[in-house]
C-alpha cells in the first residue's frame, strides 16, 4: 500500500509555513502593540514603565495631538503617489511597447536603485539638493530660484524624495499589466477607426488599470508611514506621523502613544485603501 496524504489535508499543510510566519511576526506583535496602546504610566514608576489600565482615551489624545502630522502624511503620500504615477506610466509604457531588445536592460535599471540602501539614497538626495550641490546653484544662476530660497528642509524635498524612493514600486506593476495587453486589441481599435489618443484612452488605460491600482497602493501605503524622507530631507515643519511615532517610542519613551498612533495610522490607511478599491472597481485584482 503506497502512502498518500488525505487530499483534504494538503492545502493546510501547504498553508502552514505561511500561517506560522504570519502568526509569529504579525499577529503576535500586533496583539502586543494593541495591548501596549491602552497602558498608562505606573504612578511613581521610572521612565518607560507602564501598566495596563485600558485607557482608550490614549487614542483620542494621540490623534488630537498630532492631527497636523496625520494630515501632512496623507497629503505628502498622495502627492508622491500622483507624481510617481505621472513619471512611471510613460516609463512603463515605453519599456513595455517601445524598448525592443533593450527591455530587460531597462527593467534592470528600474530595479537598480535597490542595490543601494534606502537610507544612503535619501542622503544622496540631500547632497544633490543641498546648497553646494548641482541643482540649487544652477537654478539660482538661471534666476528660477531666489538667492535665499532653498530646497532641502522643505516639503518639496520631502515629496521629491518619496517620489523617487517609491518609483520602482509604481513602475513594476504598471509594466507588468501593460506588458500583458494583447497587441491585437490595439490593432482592433485602429481597425475600428479609433485614433491613437482614443485607443490609449479607451483600450490601453482600462486594460492597465489593475497595474495602476496595484502601483498606487504599493506607493501610497509605505509613503504614508514613511519617516526617513521627512527626517533627512525635511525640517521641523515637515514632520510626518512616522517621525512622531519614532520620537514617541525612542525619545520620549512613551510606548502607549506610539502604539496608539500606529494603530490609528493602520486604520486610516485601511479605510482609505478600501474606499479607493471600491471606487476603482478592480476587486478581481486586489
Amino acid at each position, binding site marked *: 500500500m503506497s502512502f498518500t496524504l488525505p487530499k483534504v489535508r494538503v492545502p493546510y499543510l501547504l498553508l502552514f509555513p505561511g500561517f506560522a510566519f504570519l502568526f509569529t511576526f504579525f499577529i503576535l506583535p500586533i496583539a502586543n502593540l494593541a495591548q501596549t496602546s491602552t497602558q498608562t*504610566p505606573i504612578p511613581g*514608576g*521610572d*521612565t*518607560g*514603565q507602564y501598566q495596563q489600565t485600558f485607557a482608550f482615551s490614549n487614542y483620542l489624545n494621540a490623534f488630537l495631538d498630532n492631527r497636523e*502630522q496625520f494630515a501632512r502624511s496623507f497629503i505628502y503620500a498622495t502627492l508622491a503617489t500622483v507624481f510617481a504615477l505621472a513619471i512611471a506610466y510613460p516609463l512603463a509604457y515605453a519599456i513595455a511597447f517601445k524598448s525592443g531588445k533593450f527591455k530587460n536592460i531597462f527593467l534592470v535599471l528600474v530595479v537598480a536603485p535597490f542595490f543601494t*540602501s534606502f*537610507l*544612503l539614497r535619501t*542622503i544622496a538626495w*540631500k*547632497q544633490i539638493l*543641498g*546648497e*553646494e*550641490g548641482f541643482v540649487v546653484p544652477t537654478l539660482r544662476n538661471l534666476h528660477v530660484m531666489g538667492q*535665499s530660497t*532653498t530646497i*532641502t*528642509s522643505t516639503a518639496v524635498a520631502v515629496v521629491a524624495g518619496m517620489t523617487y524612493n517609491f518609483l520602482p514600486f509604481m513602475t513594476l506593476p504598471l509594466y507588468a499589466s501593460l506588458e500583458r495587453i494583447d497587441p491585437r486589441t490595439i490593432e482592433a481599435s485602429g481597425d475600428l477607426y479609433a485614433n491613437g489618443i482614443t485607443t490609449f484612452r479607451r483600450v490601453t488605460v482600462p486594460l492597465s488599470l489593475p497595474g495602476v491600482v496595484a502601483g498606487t497602493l504599493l506607493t501610497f501605503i509605505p509613503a504614508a508611514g514613511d519617516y526617513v524622507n521627512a527626517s*533627512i530631507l525635511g*525640517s*521641523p*515643519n*515637515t*514632520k510626518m506621523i512616522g*517621525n*512622531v511615532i*519614532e*520620537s*514617541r*517610542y*525612542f*525619545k*520620549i*519613551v*512613551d510606548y502607549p502613544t506610539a502604539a496608539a498612533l500606529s494603530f490609528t495610522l493602520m486604520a486610516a490607511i485601511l479605510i482609505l485603501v478600501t474606499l479607493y478599491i471600491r471606487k476603482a472597481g478592480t476587486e478581481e485584482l486586489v
Partner: protein
Amino acid sequence: MATERSLSLEARSILGARISRRGVLVGAGGLSAAGLLAACGGSGASKNDAKTLRWANWPLYLDFDSKTKKYPTLEKFKKQTGIDAQYFEDYNDNDEFFGKVQAQLKLGQDIGYDVVTPTDWMAARWIRLGYTQKFDLANIPNHGNILDSLKSPSYDPKRESSLTWQGIMSGFGWNTAKNPKGVRTLDDLFAPQNKGKIVVLTEMRDTIGIILMSQGVDITKVTEDQFMNAVDFMAKKIADGWIRGVKGNDYAQDLTSGDATAVIGWSGDMFILASENAGKFDFAIPESGGTISGDNLMIPSTASPAGKANGEKLINYYYDPTVAAEVAAYVNYVCPVKGAQAEMEKIAPELATSEYIFPTEKTAARLHVFRSLTPDEETKWAQAFQKAQGN
C-alpha cells in the same frame, strides 16, 4: 577656550599634525545614518567566558589605526592581560540602545556586552533602575585619577558604578565666512545672515541648556517653567523659519554642504571640522555658558562575574594617564583623567594645551551640567522638546 580667543587658532596650528579621526568624519551624517541600519543588524558576540570582554561604545570614539585596522590601545590591553576584548561601535543613540537591551536587562538575560557607555542622564537611568553593578574598587586602582570636577555627579556621588569615558562640551559652531565676527551669544546665532540656516542638537539638555543659560537661568537648578519657556523660544524660532533643523551628529554634514551656517554643536565634531577645512569653521563656548556632559563606562547587571572583572580591568587600564592621553590625542573630546595632560606633553605637545581636550579652569568655570530630572520630568520635558521640533 576663552570667548575672546576662540578655538580655531589652535585648531589651525594643530592642523596637519592630526589626521586620525578626521578623514572618517567627513561623511559623518552618512555614517551615523548608516549606523542606524548597522544597528539593526545587532552584533554583541555570544561568548561570555572568563577570557572575553565585550564593550559597546560610540562610533569614532577610540584610537584607531587605519593602516592595521586595529585599535592600538586596545591591542596593548589584550596583550597585557590576555583578555580577548571585543569592541563594538554599537551606540548610535542613547534611547535607541536602551530600547534594544531594556527587555533583557529586565529579565536578567545577557545583553551581549560587559561594558556599556551611556551619556550621563541615561547612565542615571541605568543606575536608578538597578541595571548596573557596583565596581570592585580593588580592581580599579586608577579610580582616583578622575578629574575632580567629574568626581561626584548626582547620579553616582561616589562613582561606585560609573567612570567617565570622555567629556563632551557643547557650544556654538559657525561658518567663519558667513559669521566673520564669530558666534558667542544667542543674538549672534540668530543674526540675519544665519536665518533659515541654523541647526541645533537633538540632545535636549545641550540645546535647551544653552538657550536657558543665555536667558540667565542656572541649569543646575532649572524649573519646569523656565524650561518650558526656553522650549517655546526654540519653537518660535522654528516656526519663524530661523532654525532649519534639530539634528544629531549630521549637523556636521549640513555645515560642510552649506545648508547650515551656524549651529549648536559638540566640541569634538567642531574640532575635526575646523582642522579639516582650514579655517572655514570655528567653535566657542557661549559667553553665557556651555554645557558639559560625559559618556560613562558602566558594567551592566547582566555581566557575568568574569565579565565584570575583565570590564574593571579595562576601565582601570583606560584610567592610566598614558593610555588616556593616547585616546584623547585621537578622539579630541575632553579627557577625564588626571595626569593625562602631562603625558600628552610627551606624545603630542601641541595637543597638551588644546582647550578642546584639556579645558583650563577659566573655561571649565563656564561649563555647566544640566540637573538630573525625575522620571516624570524626563517624560514631560522630552515631550515638550519633541513637540517643538514638529514631532
